[in-house]
């Protein structure tokens, strides 16, 4: 019969219409600014810079290697490398970003910068309410706006942050181990050289052969 399907459809919409007044569970709308959906842990958009400790200028993990700048598909990251070096978390002198800007009006939240960062310095944020009156300045996030503490990172992505911290700790452990070894080797070389110098001055060749791996200081001494 002609119109049968139309009547079925009309009944369905009428049921929805009246049902939405009777049964509040039908309305899945969330009245956004007043109520919000609970955020799931995997939420991510625009990147931010992680720092350790309390002082964001000292604790930035970023060493201005500029890999993220090169990899960024829409080219929204702008980095200026510093001229001088500062000691990083483990005390090793590193460059730091004199300038680190992200234009979030260009950023497409692809997370490639996070993937490529060898220092776990840049991570994805959950902040999305970035609308601003200022079309250019308001959407250009500078270093001070980007820097957020490791505690904040733990807060927004706990599982991921724990993993990152563990990996970093392991790396630092290795680094320290390496430094310790290097220091020990240097000490050993220095000791050996001192011993050699004391014992027999012409056997420098043998001494240099011994101390080949123990750093340039010994070599220079040997020369």
């Amino acid at each position, binding site marked *: *019969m*002609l119109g049968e399907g*139309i009547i079925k*459809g*009309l009944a*369905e*919409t*009428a049921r*929805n*219409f009246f*049902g*939405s*007044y009777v049964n509040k569970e*039908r*309305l*899945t*709308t969330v*009245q956004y600014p007043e109520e919000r959906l609970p955020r799931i842990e995997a939420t991510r958009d625009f990147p931010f810079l992680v720092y350790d400790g309390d002082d964001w200028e000292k604790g930035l993990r970023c060493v201005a290697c500029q890999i993220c700048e090169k990899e960024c598909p829409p080219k929204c990251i702008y980095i200026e490398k510093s001229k001088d070096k500062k000691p990083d978390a483990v005390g090793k002198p590193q460059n730091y970003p004199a300038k680190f800007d992200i234009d979030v009006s260009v950023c497409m939240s692809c997370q490639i910068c996070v993937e490529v960062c060898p220092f776990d310095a840049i991570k994805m944020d959950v902040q999305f309410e970035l609308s601003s009156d200022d079309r250019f300045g308001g959407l250009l996030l500078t270093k001070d706006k980007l820097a957020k503490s490791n505690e904040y990172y733990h807060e927004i992505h706990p599982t991921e942050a724990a993993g990152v911290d563990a990996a970093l700790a392991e790396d630092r452990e290795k680094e320290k181990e390496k430094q310790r070894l290097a220091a020990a080797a240097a000490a050993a070389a220095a000791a050996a050289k001192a011993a050699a110098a004391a014992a027999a001055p012409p056997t420098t060749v043998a001494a240099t052969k011994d101390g080949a791996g123990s750093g340039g200081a010994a070599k220079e001494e040997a020369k």
Partner: protein
Amino acid sequence: MPEMIDQIFVRLMHWIIGYVPTSLQPLCSAILSAVAILVVFATIFAIITVLERKGLGRMQNRYGPNRAGPWGLLQPAADGIKSLTKEDIVPHSSDQLVHLMAPILIVITSFLVYAVVPVGKNMVMADLNAGVLFFFAVGSMVELSVFMAGWSSRSKYSLLGAMRAIAQMISYEIPLVLSGVVAIMAAGSLSTVTIVNMQAGYTGIWPHWYLFTPWGITGYILFMIGATAESNRCPFDMPEGESEIIAGYFIEYSGFKFALFFVAEYLGMLATSAMAITLFLGGWAAPFSFLTWIPSWFWFFAKLLLMMMVFIWIRGTLPRLRMDQLMNFGWKFMLPLSLINLFAAGLWHFLPSGPTRWSVDSLLLLLSCFLLSRGLRRNKWFQERTYRFAS
């Protein structure tokens, strides 16, 4: 006392006109009625837009607009302010004069048709001798302004939309007029007021509306389908199909001109509904004899609002038609059925009153409806789809 409330607006106008000299009275009366029509129908338009958005929202299990004012009732005011303050962009290569004239003309014609619509007892701006003809004649000018809008924009989308709109409008205007003719035949007059008066009176509590006859209900349904197509409403909103030709003929319009097209669309819908009320639903008459103490204008606007609800309901339900479906339905179902309906109305007039003419008319219309719908269904030339790469 009910008489007094019923005629309150008429008396008010007579009272105002009493203060102007006699020579200016017809002019003054016309201006007053025009202003009243402008204000009342523009207000109804505003109410309908917010009702429509809220109703559609509820049908889709969401809230609809609820931010501007209490329950979002000030939404039309906010929309109006927004469209007034927006920049008015005229395309560089457009035909400037025609581009400007189109929205003005479409709104003027949309308002002009209300001149012959009786909104209550003694409440019609001009009781023309050929009122219904005036309605359809002025209504046909809308097509031309649609074409002007689409053509002058110099855009492919708008031209396509305009062509679709005109093709649809002239195809559905014929069944629209023909299905309205049955009421004219029964009333023996083209004057809207006479048609309403012919439907006055009650048998028991039931009114003598043309709706309550076999040809009347058929004519009413055909008229409403035609009206939906004429005003480019869902499911006949192909001329402005957002997903294919963006917004059809008014795509190149912005700001207030765009709003004027929007106003005109709704006013056209209201006007054809008002005409359907006049022709088939007894105009301002109360639906039951014991309700006649409620003023006549209330009944008119109540019926109008009810019909708008039905329009919204249908929009919330039906998907958009395809061009060939639209044309097939218009020419192969609506047109023959409205012609048969004319015949049925004539038969009704000549058969003796009683169950005979009821059964003969109903049988004739049901049978033809059934056969025509069979004819529509037979025309399915689609084959079963095969998916070559996704088995």
